[in-house]
């Protein structure tokens, strides 16, 4: 109905509770549901190459549902950008679901997995939607699932508090987006993305379209963790179960960035000069606040969450520079940051699972008792510091080089200053994990189980692989960046 990928995923969402029920009968609910959902993600990943060849055959856009020939018809379509994002979502989703088998408690596991796969499905829907209202519906499905997942450990006060904060802020943001959509609809009579850009080019000097632009930046930026709308992010990442933090930080924030790319670069292209400065200012603010707050943290997950905010700043900076190379850098950074941040959150989750503490003081010297996890954690941290043979280095280099090329060397300079800040807290993390003396708590920890190690090892391997052979992945990012330029 909606093309093979979404159909398969929706089928898996609907059947997960049934599989859970069967697993309960057998008495091994956890393993059965976890394996089923991981299988679902991997199966969907195998559908992607098929899909990609079809997109290439049809000149870059393949219509999945409805048609884009009439402005009033809802449609789903796929291009290189959406497939690029979908691959990231599915890989991180698979890793998180594999990791969750050990992390989540027995009683509520079926509900947990159903919401998790529903959330990833909604994100795939976001990247495939060809009109803004479909995008909004999938957006809300994603948001509602993530509120539920943040509040998942409902017996703990911090989950409830974080989830309430997140719910109020994020729904206010998405309602703001919807309000902007209603203005766009009033201006052009359609919400189909290709028609909107045509319609807006005609109605350019209308103050309503500027209002809509501001509201959309605020609404999507809120989800992407843009300062000053970032306050939900550290709380939600801290209070959620660790695999969910990996999903939130690795891919849900990226869905917000996808929304910004779609709206700013495709619909508001004629008004480029009016949003570039604003977005650059927000990006610089986001980098500084994220990095400086991360320096002060003692909670390991909170520190990583602030570093997510800083990385959002880098990606937004690439968008604001706006040249083809900068956009390639941004999308490449989306991929790299998703992998590294998922790696870091999952290995931090393994530490937390074994020691029951999130404080860096108590986790000191954990290398001696959990060597493999710590090694991979250190690889992830080094990558976050942008040490050359690891993946994040390449994308950050691209963004900085693009800034110099486009004549905005001030932005590149500010980003380099921020990289120094981020190196400071990353080195502190490494020192804590590897150099400091063991505490009583970290002495008692033991190596994580196999099911936790597999996703961590896979992500670490991907990080090194992309670092050593960046060019094929960069070509993919370039194709995705090309897809945002109509004509």
């Amino acid at each position, binding site marked *: 109905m909606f093309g093979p990928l979404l159909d398969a995923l929706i089928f898996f969402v609907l059947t997960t509770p049934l599989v859970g029920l069967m697993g309960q009968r057998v008495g091994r609910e956890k393993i059965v549901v976890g394996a089923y959902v991981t299988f679902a993600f991997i199966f969907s990943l195998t559908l992607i190459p098929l899909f990609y060849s079809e997109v290439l055959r049809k000149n870059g856009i393949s219509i999945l549902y409805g048609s884009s020939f009439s402005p009033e018809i809802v449609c789903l379509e796929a291009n290189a950008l959406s497939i690029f994002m979908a691959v990231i979502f599915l890989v991180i989703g698979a890793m998180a679901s594999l990791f969750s088998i050990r992390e989540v408690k027995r009683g509520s596991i079926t509900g947990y997995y159903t919401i998790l796969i529903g959330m990833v499905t909604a994100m795939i829907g976001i990247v495939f939607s060809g009109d803004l209202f479909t995008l909004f*519906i999938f957006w809300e499905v994603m948001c509602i699932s993530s509120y539920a997942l943040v509040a998942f450990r409902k017996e703990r006060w911090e989950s409830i508090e974080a989830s309430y904060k997140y719910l109020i802020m994020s729904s206010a943001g998405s309602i703001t987006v919807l*309000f902007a959509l209603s203005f766009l609809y009033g201006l052009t009579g359609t919400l189909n993305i290709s028609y909107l850009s045509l319609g807006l080019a005609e109605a350019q000097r209308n103050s309503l379209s500027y209002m809509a632009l501001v509201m959309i930046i605020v609404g999507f930026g809120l989800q992407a963790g843009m300062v000053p709308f970032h306050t939900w992010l550290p709380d939600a990442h801290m209070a959620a179960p660790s695999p969910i933090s990996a999903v939130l930080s690795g891919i849900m924030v990226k869905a917000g960035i996808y929304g910004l790319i779609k709206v700013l670069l495709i619909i508001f292209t004629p008004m480029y000069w009016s949003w570039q400065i604003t977005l650059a200012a927000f990006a610089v603010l986001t980098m500084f606040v994220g990095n400086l707050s991360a320096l002060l943290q003692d909670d390991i997950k909170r520190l990583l969450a602030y570093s997510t905010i800083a990385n959002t700043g880098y990606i937004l900076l690439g968008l604001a520079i706006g040249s083809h190379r900068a956009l390639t850098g941004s999308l490449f950074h989306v991929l790299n940051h998703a992998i590294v941040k998922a790696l870091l959150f999952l290995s931090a989750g393994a530490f937390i699972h074994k020691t029951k503490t999130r404080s860096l003081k108590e986790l000191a010297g954990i290398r001696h008792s959990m060597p493999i996890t710590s090694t991979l954690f250190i690889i992830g941290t080094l990558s976050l510091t942008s040490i050359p043979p690891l993946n994040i280095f390449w994308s950050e280099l691209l963004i900085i080089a693009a800034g110099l090329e486009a004549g905005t060397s001030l932005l590149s300079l500010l980003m380099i200053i921020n990289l120094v800040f981020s190196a400071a807290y990353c080195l502190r993390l490494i020192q804590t994990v590897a150099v400091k003396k063991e505490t009583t708590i970290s002495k008692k920890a033991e190596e994580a189980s196999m099911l936790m190690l597999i996703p961590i090892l896979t992500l670490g391997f991907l990080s090194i692989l992309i670092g050593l052979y960046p060019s094929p992945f960069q070509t993919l990012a370039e194709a995705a960046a090309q897809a945002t330029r109509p004509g």
Partner: protein
Amino acid sequence: MACSVILFFIGLYCLIVKRNMVRLLMALEIMMNAVNLNFIALSSYGAEGAVHPLAHVFTILSIGIGGCIIALGLVIVLYAYRHYGTLDVRELRRLKG
């Protein structure tokens, strides 16, 4: 349209000023209604007096989504009440840093 903009800002004001958890959810609902009203108002621009069916579709779907948000919000408020024993958002300040 003017009406819906005013309604939206009433909702936003409410969201900023009010201290009761349930009232914050009500503020969200007011904003949602402003959006729905705006869709209907703007869709009759093209042809006088007639509302385009597309706007009806948008409105009905967004009412449904609003219902979902409020339902989940009330569940979370219920749990928060059990943890804190109050509906005052000023009490929810333990997360810091």
